[in-house]
């Protein structure tokens, strides 16, 4: 019941918000209530455990469409927290953004009720992806997330955002279409399925035996398809465009929650891999993972757009998460104990990336440009934002005491030697590239290099509050985790 509620509530609110035309304050209240109710649902789901366990799984005897297992609970919690932060931020951010950008000859932004309607529907469809226990339903829901998040990208209705939206729609839809093909082949590869079996239900699939050759084909197609949505190189081309053109909180949600949602689909397929082809699938995931980190490294080092840099950093982390998944799920039972490490990575990446994207949105508002060269001396012009920005970059590059340090450490320790060394070198490159940007933007005197802006707009406190609170939370968690590690 709770599971169904957490999917349905956002959709009901989406409908209600749509009818709040010209009543912006009501729309704002409704979206806040939707976010709060969803968070409440998630808390209740984690409290009311089935027989004292966290797991309310659908079984073969009773195949249900929705259910939770550990990974879906973790990602659902992340999504809910992120959405709450992003809605609160958007309430302060949108009026400021509209005021600052109105005078520069921009076209009229999307009306607030439509924007919040899509936001709420986005939350609902993401919850559906996460809680779905049926691979076809997962597909439907992931396609739905594309549909409701595409309009969010062109909030400002600029030419560039339209272009980004078209690329996102076309590339992701074709990708997800290929994943549907993969899902069909997966069903086809089941050995000895009787008529009327719940063939797409995860509980059934976990027990089923597969024809290895067909499963290989299914895995490759599904991997390519959902990998497109997850932003893995070489299918990542839509991601930097969409993430850099979207307004701050949409970028934060796209990067922090949506990529996790596509990851869950790949995770479901990886869980089912039969032993005969485990090493093939593992090598494929290693290759794509390393390629993602490499592409991200190359593009981060010579980047002159700080939002694109963050987008490439998401590509990098998705690659790392993929490598970790390959290690955890495909190298025998004892490695499955490392699963919590994977969850730490998901959580830490989502929170840090959200904070960074919200901060990047603020810098963009103040300076009116995304060029890295235009921003100098953030410590002097915007002290709080400057500190959050530098700390965020510090944490996302996995410098201890960052939470991301532990997953990356375990990755390098447990991966095969070639994978470990390559990843480590690439991680250093990413670290150098991002730190370079962080130091260049925060230090120095405003206007000391050509093309940098000396007098950015002043931003009200409300806009800075949400990223500041998120960063404070992250810093406290990181430091606590660091000390716990020492004394444990």
């Amino acid at each position, binding site marked *: 019941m709770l599971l169904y509620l957490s999917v349905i509530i956002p959709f009901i609110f989406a409908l209600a918000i749509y009818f709040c035309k010209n009543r912006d304050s009501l729309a704002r209240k409704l979206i806040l209530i939707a976010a709060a109710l969803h968070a409440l649902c998630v808390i209740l789901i984690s409290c009311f455990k089935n027989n004292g366990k966290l797991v309310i799984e659908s079984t073969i005897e009773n195949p249900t*469409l929705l259910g939770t297992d550990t990974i879906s609970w973790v990602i659902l919690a992340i999504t809910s927290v992120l959405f709450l932060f992003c809605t609160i931020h958007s309430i302060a951010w949108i009026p400021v953004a509209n005021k600052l950008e109105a005078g520069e000859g921009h*076209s009229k932004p999307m009306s607030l009720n439509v924007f919040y309607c899509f936001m709420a529907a986005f939350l609902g469809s993401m919850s559906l992806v996460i809680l779905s226990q*049926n691979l*076809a*339903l997962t*597909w*439907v829901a992931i*396609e*739905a997330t*594309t*549909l409701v998040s*595409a*309009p969010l990208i*062109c909030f400002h*209705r600029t*030419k*560039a955002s*339209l*272009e*980004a*939206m*078209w*690329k996102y*729609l*076309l590339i992701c*839809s*074709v990708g997800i*279409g290929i994943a*549907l*093909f993969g899902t*069909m082949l997966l*069903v*086809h590869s089941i050995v000895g399925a009787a008529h009327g079996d719940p*063939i*797409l239900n995860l509980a059934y699939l976990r027990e089923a035996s597969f024809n290895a050759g067909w499963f290989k084909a299914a895995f490759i197609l599904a991997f390519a398809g959902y990998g497109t949505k997850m932003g893995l190189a070489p299918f990542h081309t839509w991601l*930097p*465009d969409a993430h*850099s*053109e979207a307004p701050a909180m949409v970028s934060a949600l796209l990067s922090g929650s949506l990529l996790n949602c596509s990851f869950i689909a790949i995770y479901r397929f990886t869980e089912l891999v039969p032993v005969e082809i485990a090493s093939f699938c593992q090598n494929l995931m290693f290759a794509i993972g390393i390629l993602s980190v490499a592409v991200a490294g190359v*593009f981060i080092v*010579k*980047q*002159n*757009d700080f939002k*694109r840099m963050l987008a490439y950093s998401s590509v990098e982390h998705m690659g790392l998460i993929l490598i970790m998944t390959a290690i955890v799920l495909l190298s025998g039972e004892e490695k499955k104990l490392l699963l919590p490490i994977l969850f730490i990575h998901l959580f830490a990446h989502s929170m840090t990336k959200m904070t960074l994207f919200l901060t990047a949105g603020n810098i963009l508002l103040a300076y*009116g*440009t*995304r*060029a890295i060269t235009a921003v100098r001396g953030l410590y002097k012009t915007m002290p709080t934002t400057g500190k959050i920005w530098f700390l965020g970059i510090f944490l996302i590059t996995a410098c201890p005491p960052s939470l991301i340090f532990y997953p990356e450490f375990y990755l390098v320790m447990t991966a095969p030697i070639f994978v470990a060394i390559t990843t480590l070198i690439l991680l250093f490159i990413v670290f150098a590239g991002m730190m370079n940007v962080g130091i260049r933007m925060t230090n120095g005197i405003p206007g000391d290099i050509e093309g940098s802006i000396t007098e950015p707009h002043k931003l009200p406190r409300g806009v800075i509050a949400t990223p500041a609170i998120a960063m404070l939370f992250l810093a406290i968690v990181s430091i606590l985790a660091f000390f716990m590690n020492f004394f444990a």
Partner: protein
Amino acid sequence: MITNSIEIILAIILLTDIVLVASSRLFHCIKITAIQGIAVGLLPLFIWDWSNSTPTLQLWITSIVNAGIKGVLLPILLSKAMRHSSIKRELEPLVSYSASVFIILIIITASFYFSQFMNAPATDICRFTTPTALSTIGAGLFMIIARKKAITQALGFLMFENGISIFGNGIGIEYGFIIELGILLDVLVLVFIMGITVFNINREFSHIDSDRLNQLGDYDHSKQK
């Protein structure tokens, strides 16, 4: 008898594939897509084994809704978007029309050749569903790659989607009613949003050539905001 009618439907779908990649007038393309959509939507009714029982209500609803959406609703939507953009033809495709016909023939031949090795259980329904599905998927992807206008790309996507649903029908997947409708709804909304986007792109850029949508990219310092 039944098998023959499936083969006729599949032949129609293959013919629409060939005609679509070879025609330059967009209205014509949309009409052909509508025919293909109706054929694909009604395919499950032809695959059904009529000798034992009549199809279930669920099957009737999904096939008719499918044919209605893909054959009537989406073409109307797309032709509306097209009328607003005042573009009648795809004049300079990236691959010329005669070359396109040649390529689609190669795609069809390859699909028939490779589907020999995919000994699907579809063989007991009709052994031509898998090759038709693969050719339609290939033709759809080819349209997306080889054509410039955003609207032709949307048509290519519809073809691609049709191909996937033919494949699903051929291997006899049953998703269940809710999910079946969910997939349909997704396709409907997707093409709807694509139509609106085409309209908006046309208004902002005064063209719908997707190859000229190249403002975004890395290292393009001069064009940054």
